[in-house]
């Protein structure tokens, strides 16, 4: 029987159809998806913090309203993704506990600090830009609920990237000090953005199986190259320099050559030793604890109402 189910699963995946929640699936497929989607959801939720840092200090009401909407979207992205994990049998509260106890990870990019308002623009341009590169292919991932969540997310991401780029264009038209702030932010975020695609293919242990299951559609290095090729002309137009002396067009390959990210730094940050790891998780834990009374009150209210209705 299991062999027959496995054959049907393989057929659906190979035919580019979607696996749906009530279908049989290999245990490894389910586990891999839960881990990947949960990590993705956690990244959206933790990702609210670096930018949230600037909401109260946005330079105008317009920028504040935009930033609020963007950060709210990221909360929404987290929730779409938690909903997708639940179709696989995961429990949302359990995943939150794993995040605040440091047992599950989120994207390392959010462990870097946002030092000036230019960082808000650079995050929108580069960090959301890299996220888009990662996420567009996931709209065709083999698990239906994940693919549908990614379609919703991608529709919203393009606002994120454009508001960031527009913010930077505005600053570049400003004073010399503002232009320096933009360049400084680009210098700090460029390499961590390249690391968002994960370790190089020869050091990425899960890639092969995930590609076979069509959870993943491109390798880390393919996506990284695509991101570099997209970003170079955007940086030119903006008038900033990407901080990589090895970056140049390679006509033979039809792609840009670029330098190697500092993978030691990457692994240090992944393992918890980045500039903001402890702060990010502590903040998430605190806001979860601070919200406990709201959750309790809502539960009590619902119980009281239900009791009244059944008595009536």
């Amino acid at each position, binding site marked *: 029987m299991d062999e027959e189910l496995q054959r049907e699963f393989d057929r659906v995946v190979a035919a580019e159809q979607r696996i749906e929640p009530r*279908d*049989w699936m290999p245990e490894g497929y389910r586990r891999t998806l839960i881990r990947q989607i949960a990590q993705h959801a956690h990244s959206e939720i933790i990702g609210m913090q670096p930018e949230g840092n600037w909401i109260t200090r946005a330079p105008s009401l317009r920028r504040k309203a935009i930033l609020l909407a963007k950060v709210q979207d990221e909360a*929404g992205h987290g929730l779409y993704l938690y909903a997708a994990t*639940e*179709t696989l049998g995961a429990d*949302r509260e359990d995943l939150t506990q794993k995040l605040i106890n440091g047992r599950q990870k989120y994207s390392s990019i959010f462990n870097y600090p946002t030092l000036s308002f230019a960082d808000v623009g650079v995050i929108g341009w580069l960090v959301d830009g890299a996220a888009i590169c990662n996420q567009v292919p996931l709209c065709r991932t083999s698990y239906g609920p994940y693919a549908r969540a990614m379609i919703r997310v991608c529709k919203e991401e393009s606002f994120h990237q454009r508001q960031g780029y527009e913010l930077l264009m505005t600053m570049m038209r400003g004073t010399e000090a503002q232009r320096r702030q933009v360049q400084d932010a680009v210098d700090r975020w460029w390499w961590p953005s390249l690391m968002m695609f994960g370790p190089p293919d020869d050091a990425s242990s899960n890639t092969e199986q995930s590609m076979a299951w069509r959870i993943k559609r491109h390798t880390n290095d393919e996506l990284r190259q695509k991101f570099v090729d997209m970003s170079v002309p955007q940086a030119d137009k903006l008038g900033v320099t990407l901080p990589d002396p090895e970056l140049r067009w390679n006509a033979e390959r039809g792609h840009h050559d670029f330098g190697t990210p500092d993978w030691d730094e990457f692994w240090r940050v992944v393992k918890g030793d980045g500039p903001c790891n402890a702060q990010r998780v502590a903040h998430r834990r605190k806001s979860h604890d601070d919200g406990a009374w709201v*959750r*309790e009150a809502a539960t009590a209210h619902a119980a009281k109402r239900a009791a009244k209705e059944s008595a009536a």
Partner: protein
Amino acid sequence: MSEPRSSWPLYEVFVRGKRGLNHVHVGSLHAPDDEMALRNARDLYTRRNEGVSIWVVPAAAITASSPDEKDPFFAPSGDKVYRHPTFYAIPEDVPHL
């Protein structure tokens, strides 16, 4: 220690994109009661005018066909090809049909 939030029931959310269309399933959420489910659904799934009407349904109230039953369950429609317009051969020169 507070109640885990998962003790809130799971609701499935359906949105009517615009007048003239069916409600379509868009995802799920947890909420303590129907009213909060509806409010949360508005904030989560219709931040950009994606809908003119929302349904929230406790997931526990939904009865679904199971995939193992799929073939026999849907068989009655599978062998009734005459329900589809393409079943009928009509000459090319008959207009508006």
